[in-house]
């Protein structure tokens, strides 16, 4: 049990150590270091989840210092879910990357850095999910941002650099806005710890301004429409394993902070109207992102815009949270399931897109006919991921959609349900635009030799995970009940 209680600290320390070791281990041994690290982290994440399920949320003091100068980590059910998701996707991406970044490919600039940067980003992400302090959120966000921008530009093409630059400036804009918010919040309250803030926060213009700035900055980091401008280019031009991590995990990091600030830290109605604005923007994201995905002609752009759309769902929890404990429980469980299913499915899609691009040697959707014949498992993976994107049963996406629709209907604000339904249909439209090309029979076996068993089956594995998630909804439900949001809302005794 003692080891389990140490898991938060280890979840940060182990990938950090891995990053350092991979840097010195050299290009050839780095992948092995990364795989080992990933396995350990997955074990730790599962251990933490088990611990939370057993004993509820707990705090962990790094180095035993304690707040305010020390760093406190907070592990609750929601954090455990994101950590497990990160670990699963991280493991699969690591395995995939061993095939994608071939060690014998000496020409590729910066590929050797991938392992270190990736493990470092993983460290920062884990820290972000666990941190209990609004300033540490800033630090973690920036560490994630720096490693993410670097990873985007790792391929070194003009397009990637341009996207990286945009990503970096957006990241800077967000960071500074967030930091200003923290400064104002501290000026008003003298507190940084979220738990303390939750109990001490009173109506105050400066504090409210600070929190509004923080939310806005996090919205930018999460790429909610209309602040999505940096995402399609960055996720679309990064190397595929990087895109997978960015889309399925990184945006969830900043989102998780919004979730905690909005539903846990701030008392109900603290920033009046902001919850509605977030819901409206989420709806706009669903529609606009899906429509743009439908219009894309390149595969990774399509997947990236799909992320823009799918992020929108996550924000529907905020307007729904105003309608009492039952609706909140449904909606929160819904967004958590959605975050998980989207994380798995989007990881699968980006990895799958990468494999398709390797096979075909280009990224034009229109010219990808025949994939179903030459790479059936890959196509099947894309199809399964699509199923969960559309929210069709039986898949995690369906569970999420069901819970959110139920929450919307139970709240009486049925229009959110309409948005959800439209989003599902639009997702079907863009996914089948892709699938219908892959399914076309075309005599193209040209690049079949480039197929590696890892690049074909790993996307399918993630997609299968997204589908089978529907069976794990009771478990997710239990972890949601062990989240601080629901405990503090009085739902969980």
């Amino acid at each position, binding site marked *: 049990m003692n080891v389990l209680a140490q898991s938060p600290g280890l979840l940060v320390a182990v990938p950090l150590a891995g990053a350092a070791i991979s840097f010195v281990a050299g290009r050839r041994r780095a992948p092995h270091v990364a795989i080992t690290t990933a396995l350990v982290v997955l074990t730790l994440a599962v251990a933490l989840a088990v611990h939370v399920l057993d004993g509820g949320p707990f705090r962990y003091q790094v180095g035993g210092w304690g707040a305010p100068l020390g760093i406190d980590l907070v592990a609750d059910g929601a954090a455990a879910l994101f950590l497990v998701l990160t670990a699963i996707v991280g493991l699969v991406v690591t395995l995939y990357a061993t095939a994608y970044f071939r060690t014998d490919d000496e020409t590729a600039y910066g590929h050797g850095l991938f392992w270190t940067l990736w493990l470092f980003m993983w460290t920062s992400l884990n820290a972000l999910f666990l941190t209990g302090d609004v300033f540490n959120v800033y630090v973690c966000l920036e560490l994630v941002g720096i490693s993410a921008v670097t990873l985007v530009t790792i391929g070194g093409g003009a397009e990637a650099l341009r996207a990286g630059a*945009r990503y970096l*400036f*957006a990241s800077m*804009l967000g960071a500074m*806005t967030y930091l200003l918010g923290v400064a104002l919040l501290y000026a008003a309250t003298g507190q940084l710890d979220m738990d303390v803030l939750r109990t001490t926060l009173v109506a105050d*213009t400066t504090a*409210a*301004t600070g*929190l*509004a*700035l923080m*939310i*806005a*900055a996090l*919205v*930018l980091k999460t790429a909610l429409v*209309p*602040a*999505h*401008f*940096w995402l*399609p*280019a960055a996720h679309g031009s990064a190397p595929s394993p990087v895109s997978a991590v960015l889309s399925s995990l990184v945006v969830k990091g900043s989102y998780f902070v919004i979730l905690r600030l909005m539903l846990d830290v701030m008392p109900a109605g*603290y*920033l*009046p*109207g*902001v919850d509605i*604005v977030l819901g409206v923007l989420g709806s706009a994201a669903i529609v*606009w992102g899906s*429509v*743009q995905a439908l*219009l894309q002609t390149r595969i990774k752009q399509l997947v990236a815009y799909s992320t823009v759309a799918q992020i929108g769902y996550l924000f529907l929890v905020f307007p729904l949270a105003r309608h009492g404990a039952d609706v909140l429980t449904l909606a929160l469980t819904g967004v958590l399931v959605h975050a998980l299913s989207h994380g798995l499915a989007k990881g699968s899609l980006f990895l799958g897109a990468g494999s398709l691009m390797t096979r075909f040697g280009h990224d034009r959707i229109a010219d990808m006919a025949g994939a179903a014949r030459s790479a059936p498992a890959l196509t099947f993976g894309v199809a399964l991921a699509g199923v969960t994107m559309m929210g069709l049963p039986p898949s995690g996406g369906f569970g999420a959609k069901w819970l959110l629709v139920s929450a919307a209907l139970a709240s009486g604000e049925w229009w959110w349900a309409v948005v959800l339904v439209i989003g599902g249909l639009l997702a079907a439209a863009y996914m089948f635009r892709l699938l219908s090309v892959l399914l076309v029979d075309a005599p193209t076996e040209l690049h079949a030799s480039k197929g590696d068993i890892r690049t074909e089956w790993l996307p399918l594995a993630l997609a299968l995970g997204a589908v089978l998630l529907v069976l794990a909804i009771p478990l997710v439900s239990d972890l949601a009940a062990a989240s601080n949001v629901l405990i503090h809302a009085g739902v969980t005794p």
Partner: protein
Amino acid sequence: MTPVLPAGIGSLTFSLDETGTPFLILFAFLWTISGLYAFATTPAGERARLFAYFVPSALGGVTVALAGDAISFYLCFALMAIPAWGLITHVGTPEARRAGAIYLTLTAIGEAALLAALVIMAVEADSLALPVLAEAIGTSPLRDIAVALLLASIGLKIGTLPASGFLPLSYTYTPAGAASALAGASAKVGALAMLRLLPAGVMPEEWAYVVMALGMATAFLAAILGTLTTTPRAVLGYSSASQMGLILVAAGVSLTSVEAAPLAYGAIVAFSLHHGLAKSALVLGDDVVSRLTGSARTAALAALALPVLALVGAPLTSGFVAKYALKDAVHALHGTVPEAVYALLPWTAIGTAALMLRFFALTRERTAETRVSSPRIPIALWSLVLAAVALVVWIWPAQWNVHAIESALSPSSMWTALWPGLIAIAGWMALRYAPRSAQRLTGIVPPGDVLLGLAAAVTAADRWLAGRSRSRGVTARDERADIGHSLRAAERSAVAWTAASTLFVLLVLLLVALGTR
């Protein structure tokens, strides 16, 4: 299970009763003779195809007289009527196909109406047995709709206005043997349906009057259309429609009066037997004549006079007896309409006579066709039918004809039978000296009259609809492309750095403004 449920094969009952017997004999005789005739006159290569339709049709056409419950009646009715489509379209010409299409349409509607009526009657009677059905519907709240459906179905079967073109269309293009069966037997199933299904003496008088008026109108109008049509077979078709109009008058009588119903039923049976045999003889005769030359042809033409006279209703023929029975039945009713009908009845004979003259003339004009097969068998079969026409009046049940035969010999009835024929002949003569424009009138009515126009209208509407939906599809595609283009442009400007980051700053301000309200 309730008795109205179909228990598959178990629910089909067949039995022979008093009403069915004359019809069974008539149908069996006509279908057999016609079948043999068709077999003899059809080239060997086409036989299989013709008989693929003829056999089921005959099967239905004969067993319908035995059907004892709603379902078997419907089955036989359908079995006879539907395959007849193949007989009509057998020659495969465009006209024949069109005739077939119209036939099938009307038949299908008739079947539908019959089925609906049967269902309602079965529900009301909680039984499937035919006698129970007709009785039960009389007292049911759904009586009117059921009777209307029945009349619609029967009316279509027997070519009542406005479907007077139905029968000419069914005979004109059909091979002679099959046409004989259709002309002689098929329409008589409608008569059988009247006896089996129409409730006796329960309907308000107005119903009877409307039906009788419709029957009379058909009798006259079909005669006029028939004299103006083009082929001997079409003339016979319109003649059938005209005669069936008279049967409908009898049906009208039976609807309203319990007392007159037996008389009306007698008339219906008499008319069916008489007309079935005579019309079959005419159809076959026309075909036989076209196969002969020289003196044989003249002899055949002379023999045709027998059924012609029977149809006109000359004394001592079956037609005379049938008309007599009809008059009796109408006479049993009192009121303006029945009396008017009674007064008008003899005048229908003028139409019949005119039709027969026209038929005779057209048949005589027909050029002999060279056929491979020897006409010996057709002549023999035809003779059998002729014999039946001549003898039927002497062998059918006495109670129907004793009266008629006695009175046939009186001078007044002789006169009654003769004057319409004389008027028709006089008219015919007059027409020979009439101006050419009047003469040209003959031949203006194609077999099928208004039904052809209706069919053409449907085809045109169909084409128009198809054209419209095609053009709609093209514009929709263009619009979609335009929308896609503008959406892409909108996203391009939304993600341009300065615009996008400004948008973000506005969002920040919005959240702050909201949060600090």
